[in-house]
């Protein structure tokens, strides 16, 4: 066996430590310090005043998805199913159809993402050969009152604008 065995010294073997009480009092002093600091001046709390104060999100933050468009507004997606193939949570459901605008032969007729199943891993964005799907909307709060409304379709995905400028997105922020 060539595994190096390292003996870690165990803490808490002295009588005082065994007694717990001293250590307990030490710990309680620390927490009480925090308590009074915050009680006397609550502007020093380490909190973000969400939702009034929104967090700063980097352009590479993986928010809700969107489908990008060409300059003329047509969808960039060519329904190649790469995102669906790569999706580990199997939350993308595409139906393809013929495309006649000369950009490509194929386009999505239906493009559903089940946001409840999505794990926001970003593999779909990585897999896309057309830069058609992105997670740069900056929407991090995906909430709804019904399950159905979280199965978002082509329209909704295309309507959502990107949250960042093209330059920032490609730079990756910061």
């Amino acid at each position: 066996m060539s595994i190096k065995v390292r003996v870690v010294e165990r803490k808490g073997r002295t009588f005082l430590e065994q007694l717990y009480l001293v250590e307990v009092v030490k710990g309680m002093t620390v927490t009480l310090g925090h308590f009074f600091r915050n009680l006397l001046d609550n502007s020093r709390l380490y909190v973000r005043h969400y939702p009034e104060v929104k967090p700063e999100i980097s352009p590479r933050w993986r928010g809700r998805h969107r489908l990008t468009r060409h300059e003329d507004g047509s969808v960039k997606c060519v329904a190649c199913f790469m995102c669906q193939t790569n999706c580990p949570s199997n939350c993308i459901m595409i139906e393809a159809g013929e495309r006649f605008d000369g950009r490509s032969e194929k386009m999505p007729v239906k493009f559903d993402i089940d946001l409840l199943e999505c794990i926001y891993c970003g593999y779909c964005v990585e897999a896309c050969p057309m830069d058609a799907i992105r997670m740069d909307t900056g929407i991090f709060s995906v909430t709804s009152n019904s399950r159905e409304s979280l199965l978002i379709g082509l329209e909704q995905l295309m309507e959502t604008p990107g949250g960042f400028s093209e330059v920032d997105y490609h730079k990756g922020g910061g």
Partner: protein
Amino acid sequence: MSALDILIILLRVAFGAFVPLSFVAVLVWMERRGAAFFQDRAGPNRCNVYGIRAGGLIQNLADGIKLIFKEDIVPGHIQHKLYFILAPMLVFITALLCFAVIPFADVLVLGDREYVMQAVPMDVGILWFLAVVGFGVYGIILAGWSSHNKYGVLGGLRAAAQVISYEIPMGLSLVSLLAVYGTVDLSAIAQYQGQLLFGFIPAWGFVLQPLGVIIFIVAAFAETNRTPFDLAEGESEIVAGYHVEYSSMKFALFFMGEYVAMFVSSALIVTLYFGSYQIPWLSTETLVAHARPVVILLMIGLPVIAYFFAGWIKKNNRTHYYRADDPRSRETAIYVSLLWSLVVVLEVILLIYLIFAAGGAADRILVLLLQIGSFLIKTFLMCFVYVWVRWTLPRFRYDQLQKIGWEKMLPLALLNIFITGAIIVSFS
């Protein structure tokens, strides 16, 4: 029995029943706010009625309403529905009953009549407490068992084992304390603590029993199933233990029972070790004798305290980010004006007392009120210790819990009895 007797009895019972209940709201609020401040967070600060958040107390109202209107589920697999429903009641009622024997002020002497300030005047006081608090764990065991759920049963088992382990050191630490006081009547114990030791140290329990107080407090934590001894709930291992199957108000009863138990055991700790309702160096008779100077001091002190409190409110009750027309400044203005109105009202009452009613029965009632205030403040601080400990210490492992109970607390309690006995024998 005169009308006054009946009135006093009604007031006592009302005090015994409603003070713990209203303290539930305060304690829940304290738990949340305390937890937040210990952890550098803000705590409940959203719920409001017309912009008034009452420092987060409105959140409790919202929770209460939510719990009342939630669906009350009795799972289909439960075979003993009666026990299932009985369990939370048991937990809550036993916790509440404990408070009945705790004196919250000195004996009130009105004319030739004496009124003991306990909900249930009882000579056996402390024994009642031990008996009833031990009964409370049946509620937990029953809940765990009747839930027909592995986690529930495990939670119940843990609670049972834990209570058995800690009843013993608790009882033993009490033995030495009772030897010192020479009585089991809680009223007498409270009165005993009004004395002064060597003429200048208040003869409070924690001075007389420095080791006993530690053992008792630790055991009381275990008895109430509070962190670091809340293994019966153990979210990470057994989900929520005995109340995993409960919902709605049945769950709320467990929840309230826990806080009532916490309040009651705080009250008991205060009664036994921290001078009960006694104000240090000011025994009942001293107060009655010097009622006027005390009131004048109060009249001076109140505005001073109110001034600093108002300053604190103004400093902290504002929005810490840019917000047009901050609604919290309005809220602050309301609080401050309410505070000053209260001060004015109190000053007027005290003034009326000074001019018209000084001396006689009014002095007695004044002292009663002061002592109740003292008792409640002490209990409140003890509750804060509960919260403080909870948000400082992690939960013990089960084997550690038993080890501490049997291998440390029990010998220490026995040692305490020997020392106390030796001292009492040698001094008497």
